[in-house]
């Protein structure tokens, strides 16, 4: 009995040893040369594998940077520090990359948007609502409030507020853009972090209807376009800001009755109040 045990141990040990030796030799002979930069860049990347760069993951991005197909500033998550690190590894100049942040271009929450007569019953997901009936709101362009963007955020930087609209927690946001892709209504757009003025509406309805479905919609009156000297253009009943020609002082914030065009922090309302006070 003991013999069998010993022989068995010896046999398995011997076999293991032989195969291990064989593999070790094969590893030496068949080693594939891999650019050490790939590993270094992979190390410098955030490692979230969010896919914000357009490649399958951080490693894939690193391979493409070394291969010259991807830009050293291609990682939207890592920001400037990361781009600088990668540029140092690659020995090129990073330039400056501005961080992109998602902006929610709809202010029509439960309080502002008019709801349909028929209620939506079903999965609380924007994509499902889009397929079935278009959700609860009468507006066919605004935020559905289903939280697909919250769901899509790998960094927990998106939350739903009490008004049924998503909010970005900028400290957590890395600008990967997953929320932008998740939104079936394209209400979320990626903009440079320092950009302050937006049209917070996507409604292309004619003025009367736009006014009926939501109290904060862009009604398409076009006054901002007329006054702003090319800074704002009207596209199919919707004001669209042309950021290249934008002159902040020329935008008539006080003339927009619904405050559809305004600052990110809503400071145009305060400006308006100050103006009123000065008049009085």
């Amino acid at each position, binding site marked *: 009995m003991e013999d069998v045990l010993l*022989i068995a141990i010896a046999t398995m040990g011997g*076999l293991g040893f032989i*195969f291990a030796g064989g593999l070790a030799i094969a590893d030496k002979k068949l080693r594939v040369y891999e650019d050490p930069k790939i590993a270094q860049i992979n190390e410098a990347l955030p490692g979230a594998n969010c896919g914000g760069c357009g490649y399958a993951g951080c490693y894939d991005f690193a391979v493409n940077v070394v291969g010259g197909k991807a830009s050293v500033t291609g990682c939207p998550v890592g920001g400037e520090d990361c781009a600088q690190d990668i540029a140092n590894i690659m020995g090129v100049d990073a330039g400056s990359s501005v961080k992109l942040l998602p902006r929610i271009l709809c202010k029509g929450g439960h309080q502002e948007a008019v709801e349909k007569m028929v209620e939506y019953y079903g999965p609380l997901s924007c994509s499902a609502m889009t397929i079935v009936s278009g959700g609860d709101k009468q507006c066919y362009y605004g935020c559905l409030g289903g939280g697909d963007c919250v769901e899509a955020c790998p960094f927990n930087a998106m939350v739903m507020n009490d008004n049924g609209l998503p909010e970005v927690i900028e400290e957590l946001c890395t600008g990967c853009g997953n929320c932008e892709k998740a939104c079936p209504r394209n209400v979320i757009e990626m903009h440079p972090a320092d950009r302050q003025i937006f049209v917070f509406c996507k409604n292309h309805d004619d003025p009367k209807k736009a006014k009926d479905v939501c109290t904060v919609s862009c009604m398409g009156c076009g006054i901002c376009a007329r006054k702003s000297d090319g800074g704002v253009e009207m596209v199919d009943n919707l004001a669209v800001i042309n950021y290249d020609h934008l002159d902040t002082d020329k935008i008539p914030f006080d003339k927009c009755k619904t405050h559809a065009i305004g600052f990110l922090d809503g400071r145009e309302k305060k400006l308006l109040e100050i103006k009123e006070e000065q008049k009085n």
Partner: protein
Amino acid sequence: MELLLIFLSAAIVNNFVLAYFLGICPFIGVSGKITSAFSMGLATTFVMTITAIVTWLIYHLLLVPYHLEFLQYVSFILVIASLVQFVEMFIKKVSQPLYRALGIFLPLITTNCAILGLALFMVLKDYSFVQGVVYGVGAGAGFTLAITIMAGIREELDLADVPKPFQGAPITLIVAGLLALAFMGFSGLISV
């Protein structure tokens, strides 16, 4: 003649995938494109052939003389695992695109039951060395045949108007079942 029969038996009549239902995982997973499916088939054939050779040698020259037949499972798994490691290194060296196309399924050949099945069947059927090698090549050819047919059908299926609930995995499993049904027509034709 007998060797030819063993080959045909392993490749078609008792096809490992479609008659024994072994190795379904790569059969479903890598059958998206004909080229990668065929390469997967070749890699599996290679592993199967070498496995047949090495396991026959180990079983008949090491395990039987020392009455260690109870070690067959663990030693066979050791052989297969080492071989797959080797094939992985080899493919990475020879063809990077193929290495990336096969992805996770390459290491998964290790746990491909078709290969352990081959080694165990070979012992069960008490084949001689040459018979065993032919059996290994036949089984590999059968796997390649099955996975390539499957990939061909799935490439056509991409263009077909499949009802939404059946798209993806469900229709693939239905196709696999129908293919298996067709191959069942060969059963009993050769009994080796």
